[in-house]
Structures are given as C-alpha cells and as structure tokens.
C-alpha cells in the first residue's frame, strides 16, 4: 500500500470511503509518523492515540460518513477538547483538562474527523516563531534550525511534516497564514465571525479567528466547510451561510477576476527571493486570465503599530482570568500570603516573557492619561484600514501580497528583539483589523535559501470563496510548472 501519510485529505477520505484502507489504518499510519519524526519537529504537545483510534473505529463501523470522515487532524492547543490537556503553550495552564468541547471540535467529531492531538504554539498565541511556547520550540520541517512560524507553528509543521494532512489553527494577526507561508502549506483566516470562537481560549477577542491548515487548497476548503457557520454559543458569530468554498476551490477558472497588488506591501524590508516568487505568481495569474492592477492602501503602514496597541489591550484584559483561583497554576499559597500576592506570584511564574511584555503594554495603553493617545488612536487607525480595504474592493475582487516579508528565520535570531519579531506579521495584520477573509498559499522556494514563499490573498468579509477561487487556480498552474507538490521537495526527516 502507498504511504498513507503522503495522501491529501481528499484522497484519504476517498480511500476510506472505498475501503481501500480503513480509517484505523489511516490513523495508525499518522500516529506512527508522529512517533517517528516528532521528536525532531516537536509539532505536538499531546497525542491522543486512544481517542483518535476510537473515532476511526466509529468511521469504519459506518457510524459517520462525509467528505472528511476518517481524515486525521492536528488541533492547535488553544482550542478546548473535553478531558484532553489544553495548555495554550503556557505553564499557567499545564495539566488543565477542559470540561467542555469547543464548537470547532464538536463539528469535527460530527464530521468523522479523527483528532490526533494538540499542537505546539507561542504562549497564548503571542509570537511569530513558536519559540514563546513554554514547552520548547517547534522546528520547521524544511530546516530544523529554523522557525515554523507562529503562533500556530505546531499546526503548520505537523501538516508540512506529513504528521497530519490537515490542522486547525487560530489567527489573530497572522498565526495561521505566516506559519503556512514559511512551511510551504496552505493557511486560511476565515472572515471574522465565520467560524465559532466558542472554546477558543481568547487572546484578542475582536481579532481571533480559527481556520484551516492544509497541504492543498481543496483540503482547506473541505475543512473550512466543516467548521464554518453560525453558532449560537458565540454571539459574534455571523448568522449567514458560509460561501461555497469547496465549489470555488474546484472551479479553477479566474478569467476576468480583478486582482489588486497592494503597493504598500512590497519594497524595502522584503527579501529579494520573496518578491521574485511573488511577482512570478502575479504574472501567472495574468496568464490565467486575471486582470491585475496595482492598488494603494495608504494606511496599511499604520496597521502594525495599531495592532500592537489593540492586541495587548485586549490581551491584558483577557489574560486577567488567569488569577490562580478557578483553574491552572497556583504558586506561593502558604496560608499567610494574600490572594493578591498569590496571584502576582502565580502570574510571574506561569507566564513567559512575551505574555508579560504584552500584558504590561496593554495595561499601559489602557491606563488613564494614555488611553486616548494609544488605544483610542489605534481604534481610529482600524477605521482607516477598513476604509482602505473598502476603497480597494470597490475596484478589485481580491488583493494580493507576499504573506510575510522574509522566509523562515533561524531559531533564536529574533527572540531578544520584539520589534523584529513583530515585523513577521506586517502583511497579515490588516485583514485581522478589518475582519476580512485571507489565505496564504505556497508559490515556490526563494532562490537564495531554498525556503518556501507564501502569497497572501485577501477578500472582503463573507467573500471567503474568492480566496479559494484564486487559490485553487493558482495552485493548479504552479503544480503544472513544478511537476510535483512543493512539499515533495522538502528534505526527508
């Protein structure tokens, strides 16, 4: 039998449906792959072999069917799964087992998806490299000395290392798309409100969004269709049907599609090989019949500073719940110390450097005397960025840019320079601030370092299907020129 871990989710579902392989065999093949390579990749924080095999048996018994029935998946450790450790990459939640399932998890189970385990991430999703995990970094399968992106580096690395065909990430400022770009995988941030946040441990509630990671655009679409749609348990969830992303991924015809290249997301600070592969991909879109225009979004240069005020503000508020009272770590409770002292000792011991940095930044931005100048101004910039998008989408159907200015950097390279780390999300942040749909897909390897480059597609809210329309067509054309999927070129692990 062919190596089951090399098949796409679409192929695996077909293989299981025709009984050429059982769901249990598929699950076991992936568990074996994890056992063989994850010591080096460290994509997983917890593997639930027992739960995975039990779910696979239900699929084999014919209890569940559907387009992803029996397909294994890796779940970011920010998402609750009843009885399974959920740490968010933090010591403060080490050992915590949630008493309920996230809506995303319920929908995956109902679709027959086999959840293999929980993936590594920057602590509470704060970071662009997965180095801020309390449990050690994840390594990029293309080069184990390099970062796999972040915060969802574990989910992207698991998919790139053939440990799982698909994964769930969450994206607050690029945490699905940037790891996708630097690992040669597909990552999608759906429209804000398009996928339920119930059961996602909150980082910045107005920005967080769960979405798919995959090796192909079609696989991402199938996963998007399973997890998307209104959820009464999330009051910010949009009560409207999810666009038909699967049909869009399969159409592969972009004649007449109006594509805008964002002028402000290129030039100084962008790696030459990233810009080269991006320009080649845009030329390919033109050959496929798309109409390409250059579009200006003048306020995008303020997106990064606005984000690093809005996010820390929401984060300092959300992370206040880690108070050592109801769950998680408690340190220094000797019967003498006050609740407040125990709280401060616990948070000091339980949070890592980046979490503390952002909590204090948010506390500062929200404090009286500074509120208007910082948080207030950042919220105004959010309006200006949304207006830039609206003006652009009046002229074009989608916008494109590189996903991230550089390819994967080396582990340790930016860890002591927070501003350098933040620059990795320069291109992805605007979509979070505006609540847009956005995708990253691989468009080749940078000539100077042989590492993957991602192209970002951005679409208006609730027009997620346009991402898949462009993504599906571009992926097919690139595959034609490469002769094999990009990940076939990654070194053997």
């Amino acid at each position, binding site marked *: 039998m062919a190596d089951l871990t090399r098949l796409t989710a679409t192929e695996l579902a077909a293989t299981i449906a025709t009984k050429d392989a059982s769901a249990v065999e598929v699950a076991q093949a992936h568990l074996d792959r994890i056992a063989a390579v994850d010591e080096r990749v460290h994509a997983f924080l917890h593997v639930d072999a027992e739960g995975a095999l039990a779910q696979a048996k239900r699929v084999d018994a014919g209890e569940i069917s559907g387009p992803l029935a029996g397909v294994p998946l890796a779940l970011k450790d920010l998402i609750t799964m009843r009885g399974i450790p959920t740490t968010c990459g933090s010591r403060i939640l080490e050992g915590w087992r949630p008493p309920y399932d996230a809506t995303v998890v319920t929908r995956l189970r109902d679709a027959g998806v086999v959840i293999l385990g929980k993936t590594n991430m920057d602590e509470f999703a704060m970071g662009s490299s997965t180095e801020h995990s309390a449990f050690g970094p994840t390594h990029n399968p293309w080069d184990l000395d390099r970062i796999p992106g972040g915060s969802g580096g574990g989910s992207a690395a698991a998919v790139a290392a053939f440990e799982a065909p698909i994964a769930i990430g969450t994206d607050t400022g690029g945490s699905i798309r940037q790891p996708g770009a630097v690992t040669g995988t597909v990552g999608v941030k759906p429209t804000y409100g398009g996928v339920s946040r119930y059961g996602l441990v909150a980082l910045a509630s107005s920005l967080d969004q769960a979405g798919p990671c995959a090796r192909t655009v079609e696989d991402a679409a199938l996963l998007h269709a399973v997890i998307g749609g209104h959820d009464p348990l999330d009051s910010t969830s949009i009560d409207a049907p999810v666009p038909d992303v699967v049909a869009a991924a399969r159409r592969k015809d972009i004649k007449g599609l109006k594509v805008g290249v964002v002028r402000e997301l290129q030039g100084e600070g962008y790696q030459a090989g990233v810009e080269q592969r991006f320009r080649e991909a845009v030329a390919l879109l033109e050959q496929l019949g798309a109409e390409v225009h250059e579009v200006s979004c003048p*306020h995008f240069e*303020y997106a990064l500073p606005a984000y690093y005020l809005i996010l820390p503000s929401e984060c300092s508020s959300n992370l206040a719940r880690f108070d050592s009272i109801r*769950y998680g770590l408690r340190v220094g*409770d000797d019967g003498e110390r*006050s609740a407040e002292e125990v709280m401060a000792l616990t948070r000091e011991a339980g949070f890592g450097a980046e979490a503390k*940095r952002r909590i204090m*930044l948010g506390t500062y931005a929200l404090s009286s005397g500074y509120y208007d100048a910082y948080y207030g*101004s950042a919220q*105004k910039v959010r309006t200006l960025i949304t207006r830039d998008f609206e003006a652009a989408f009046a002229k074009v159907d989608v916008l494109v840019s590189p996903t991230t200015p550089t390819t994967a950097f080396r582990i340790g390279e930016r860890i002591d320079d927070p*501003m350098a780390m933040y620059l990795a999300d320069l291109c992805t942040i605007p979509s979070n601030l505006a609540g847009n749909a956005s995708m990253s897909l691989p468009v080749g390897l940078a000539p100077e370092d042989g590492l993957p480059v991602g192209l970002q597609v951005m679409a208006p809210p609730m027009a997620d299907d346009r991402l898949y329309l462009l993504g599906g067509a571009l992926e097919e054309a690139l595959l034609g020129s490469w002769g094999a999927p990009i990940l076939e070129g990654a070194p053997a692990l």
Partner: protein
Amino acid sequence: MSTITRDEVAHLARLARLQLTDDELDTYAAQLDVIISSVARVSEVAGEDVPPTSHSVPLTNVFRPDEPRPGLTAEEALAGAPAVESQRFRVPRILGEEV
C-alpha cells in the same frame, strides 16, 4: 527621550499582578520603551474626524430564549481548581487583618 521609566514598569506590573524580578524590570523598561516609541505613530493619522472601530462586526445585544439548559456540574466546574473545599473554590487569604 525615554517614554517609559523603570518605576512606571514597576507600577504597571503591580496593576497587572505580575511579581517581576529586578532583572525583568530593567529588560522590560528598555523593551517597552522601544515598542511604545514605535507604536505611538498611530496618532499621526488619528484625526478628530475619524470614528473609532472596536470591532469589525457591528453587533448589539444578541439574545437567546431564556430557557434552562444543562450546564457543568459542580464537580466538572471544580475539576481544574488549584484548591477545593466543601464543593467550593478555596481561595488564599482575602482579608487584610490577622486571622
């Protein structure tokens, strides 16, 4: 000019309930200074006439019918607690006086 002093960082840490070490205070004072100086650029374009956006989806008052439905049991709710006593969360000392 520095935008944030070491004493201000110590104050922020107290507000945020973080018992920082002296080394951390030094590190964060330097780093927060760089970050705040950089993000302060937002005020360049945040004119009086620009309304703020707090959320990309304008929603107000999402209701559901007020009907009883199953929730967590006391055991489930307490399962992750650091300390439990008599089916309740046990908290550290909360009163200032000596007991």
